[in-house]
Structures are given as structure tokens and as C-alpha cells.
């Protein structure tokens, strides 16, 4: 189905964690107008909030225990509802992981922009985290490859020969070089483990 400019907002689910108050009425109205399903909750987010597409939360009287996840670890975009621009409250709102913000009293302006900005910030943060995890993975894989090469070097091969053996092993096993290296290192350590005196520390 082709969606036009909806940014998948149609029938998205938003939880608004705020005590009932006139300051957020315009927000509730505007979210409905935009096409979201809105649930107002207080004093804490229920467990099913984990399925929400957006969380709006009160920065003025909120605290960590209201959320069913650790600070900064929300599985969806979070938008802080800020009344008091005091540094302490702002620090808390940021620690919780604000991807966007709206000032109170909320009006019919800025809600659509806040949704799109928060979604974009959340997606960007998530992509960065995935990239970092991937790089860390590859970094540790590279260390394993060096360890595997060292096994053959200690057995008298040149470094070039060691790389060639590793490459041929990977081909024979039909796995990546990183996977072959991991297996070779594991085998090597298993052989050495029973006799600690003969163990060659290659790490």
C-alpha cells in the first residue's frame, strides 16, 4: 500500500504521560486530528506502553519509576512536555532520552513537527547504535583473525602462509574468514587447556 506523507502516522499509538490538565488539551486534540490513537495515562506508563509508537511525558513532575524501561532506553521516540525550563528538570528530561520537545501549555502548533523530528532523531540514534555494534563486532573479529594467524606463525609458518591457510580453511568449511578464525582459536584453546604449563598465550 502506498502511504503518502503520513510517515506512518496514521493510526499510530501515542501515550501521553501527564496528569489531566488544560495545558495538554490542545495536544490531545491535535494528535487525534493528525490521525493518532491517543491514551492519556498517569501516574505511570503501563507495561503495554512498550507497544506505543510515541511517548509524550511530563518533564515538570516526572520521575524515572514512571517508565517500564531504563532511562534513555525507550524502544520508541519520546517527546518531553516542558513547562518549567529549569536546568534540573531539563537534565532529567534529557536523561530519560527526549527525541523531541513541546512547550506547555501546548497549542495546535508544533505537534506534527515534534512527531516527525522525534521519529527522525530516534531512527538516527538507533541506526548509530546498530552501526557501533557492528563495528565493535568487526573489531573483535579482526582480533580473532590475528589470533588465528598467530597460531600458524607459532607453528613455523610465515605470516603470508598463515593467512593463506586461514583463507583455505574458510573456503573448505564454507564459512567466512572471521568464523573460521573463531573456530580455529577455539580449537587451539581447547587443545591447550588440559595442560596449562604448555599453554601458549596468544591473546
Amino acid at each position: 500500500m502506498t502511504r503518502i506523507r503520513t510517515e506512518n502516522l496514521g493510526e499510530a499509538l501515542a501515550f501521553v504521560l501527564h496528569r489531566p490538565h488544560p495545558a495538554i488539551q490542545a495536544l490531545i486534540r491535535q494528535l487525534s486530528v493528525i490521525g493518532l490513537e491517543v491514551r492519556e495515562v498517569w501516574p505511570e506508563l503501563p507495561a503495554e506502553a512498550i507497544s506505543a509508537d510515541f511517548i509524550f511525558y511530563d518533564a515538570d513532575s516526572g520521575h524515572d519509576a514512571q517508565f517500564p524501561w531504563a532511562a534513555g532506553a525507550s524502544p520508541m521516540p519520546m517527546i518531553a512536555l516542558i513547562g518549567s525550563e529549569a536546568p534540573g528538570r531539563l537534565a532529567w528530561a534529557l536523561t530519560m532520552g527526549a527525541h523531541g520537545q513541546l512547550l506547555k501549555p501546548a497549542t495546535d502548533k508544533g505537534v506534527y513537527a515534534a512527531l516527525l523530528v522525534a521519529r527522525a532523531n530516534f531512527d538516527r540514534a538507533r541506526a548509530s547504535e546498530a552501526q557501533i555494534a557492528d563495528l565493535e563486532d568487526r573489531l573483535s573479529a579482526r582480533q580473532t583473525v590475528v589470533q588465528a594467524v598467530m597460531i600458524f606463525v607459532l607453528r613455523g609458518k610465515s605470516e603470508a602462509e598463515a593467512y593463506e591457510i586461514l583463507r583455505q580453511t574458510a573456503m573448505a568449511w564454507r564459512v567466512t574468514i572471521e568464523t573460521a578464525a573463531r573456530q580455529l582459536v577455539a580449537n587451539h584453546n581447547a587443545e591447550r587447556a588440559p595442560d596449562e604449563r604448555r599453554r601458549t598465550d596468544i591473546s
Partner: protein
Amino acid sequence: MKRVIDIGLLQSQSGHYAALSRVVSAGVLQGVAEVNASPAFDLAFNVHARDPECRAERYAPLCRQILRETPARHIFGCVTSSSRKDVIPELERHDGILWYPLPYEGFEASERVAYMHSCPNQHLLPLLDWAIPTLGPRGYLIGSNYIWGWEIAQIARERITGAGGLVMGDRYLATGDTEADHIIAEIEALRPDFILNSLIGDSSYSFMRQLAGLRAQSGAALPVLSCNFTEVEIDSCGGAAEGLVSAGPWFEPTDDQGDRRRGSLAEMARLAVHELAQLLHGRPGAGDLSLAELTQLALAAGQPLRLDPTHFHARQPVVIAQIQGGRFHEVLRHPPRTADPYLTGRERGLTLRPPLRVVS
């Protein structure tokens, strides 16, 4: 004895899109005359007019002037989306309400604006859904260089590519600019299946004349679509608008004997005056209520409303019509549909799914 309700009229009498604002003024004044003469209403409107002269910087100050210096709260005003956005802060500050009778690009829902014409699920999307299978999948987009032109092009691009079509060009002219040689040359080279014209005022009329010249010289069909071209602009193009296909909630009936050339802007302006009269009729003191309160009262009383009480956009039929012999003739008509200003698909089947996919 009718009670008197003061209203504001913020429409330009001169300037590069005055052809549009004058016809909106005429529609408002006709609606006012009808309401004032009708025994069906217990009220009469008294109009306070201000002339922004099609100058963007004059709208907000004149809106403020109406709200502060006259008893009027309801203002029938604005043509361009930028002027509408400019006056909203004044409406908020001075408790005013704007009645806006033109098609616009959506993505707005102020609590202080009654959107009385149509938004893209009521004009652009049904127009493209008709055009792509009928004319072909290769479109060329041209518009005035401001929010209406940009957003219409953006939505059109998504719809056209979503239907498997191709956007061959995407060009803008400054409002009032009539120099389009480079665009005509590009269209001549590209030969698109259709051109979506979102130019306003003189730019549009000049472009249509130059395009008619290209058609005569090259023999290419080059059909033009528009969501903002109405009856009042046909004569300004001197015959060059022949064949143009437009979408809107209303076109001048072809059996209409008189040649009034009012078009949907005047008609929606006239109906907006009637809508306000119906909301205020029989409710002394309702002049101070918000749009939300007025629509809720009407809803509770079982009154038929054009405005949706959620987002204050009018429910409208969709008519697609083509200019033949200097008049619009209906090509296709969809029943009235609710506005979907954020295109989040309340009428999913109607608004979001293109009727067929072009595979060529």
C-alpha cells in the same frame, strides 16, 4: 428585528492575484446579502473590509486592525497559504476566527480556522488517480515558489512514483513572475504525458498562453491539470486554458444561462457565510464562542454541518472537470468525502491506495 453580527473581510482589491481575491469578496458579499435578506435567519451581518493589496506583509497588521478596532471576530480572508499562516498568531492573540474558502495543501489544523474549500485528498489525489491511467504516467510539475507550489509537488511526486509513474520535471516561478521560456523549452524537449500547474495568478495565465503556443507549434497534446484553476481565470488566459482539467468541490453548472464566472472560490466563500449564519442563528451571545463550541452546539442540535467538528475542514464532493468551449464540463464526480488534512487515511480506500498501478 435581526441582531447585527460584525464580520471582517480581508481580501485584496488590487495586486497580482486580485482576480481571485475579488471573486472571494464577491462570494462573501453575496452570502451576506442572502443572509441579511432571509427571514430564515435571526441575524444580519455587517462587513468591515480591509484591502491587503496582495502584499504578504499587510495581512497580519490588517487582521489585527479588524480584531482590535472593530467588533468583528469572524474574518473571511486570505488567498495564499502564507498569508493564512501569517494571520493565525493574530487570531490567537485577539480571539479571532478565520473563514478560509480556498483549496490548500493540508498539514494544518488550527482551532481558529474554518477550512471551507478542500485539501489534497479532496483535490490533488483524485485528480492524479484519474489522470495517470487516462493520460499516462509521466508528469511534469510546475508551481509558484511558495508553500502551495512546493507541497502540492511533494504530494504529487509521491502519488505519481507510488503508482509506478515518473516525475520528469519539477519547476517553480516566483509569484507574479511571467518569464517561463526555459520551462517551455524543457517541456518541449521532455513531452510529458501531463503537466500539473500549481502556479497562481499572472504567472499561471502567462504560462498557459506560452504553453498553448508550444502546442500549436509542435502538435503535442501536453494536457494541463490544476487544483487551483477556476472559472474566473479562464478569460485571463485568452483561450489558452482550453482542455485544462481541474479538480474541486464545485464547478459552475453548464446549464447556467448567465455567464457569471464565479467558480468554486466564490461559491465556497458564499457557503462559508451561510455556515456561520447557521451556527449563530437562534443562539444570541454565540458570537463569542469558539469554533469547537459552535460546532458542538450545532451537532447536539442535529444541525447539518459542512465543517468536520474534529478539524474544522469542510466535507466536500470531488468533481473533476475539463474546460471545453471556455467552460468547465464535468468529467467525473465522487460523493462527498471527509477532509484528511494530514493524509493519515481516515478513508483509507479512497485516499491512500492508487486505483491501479501503471506497469509500462
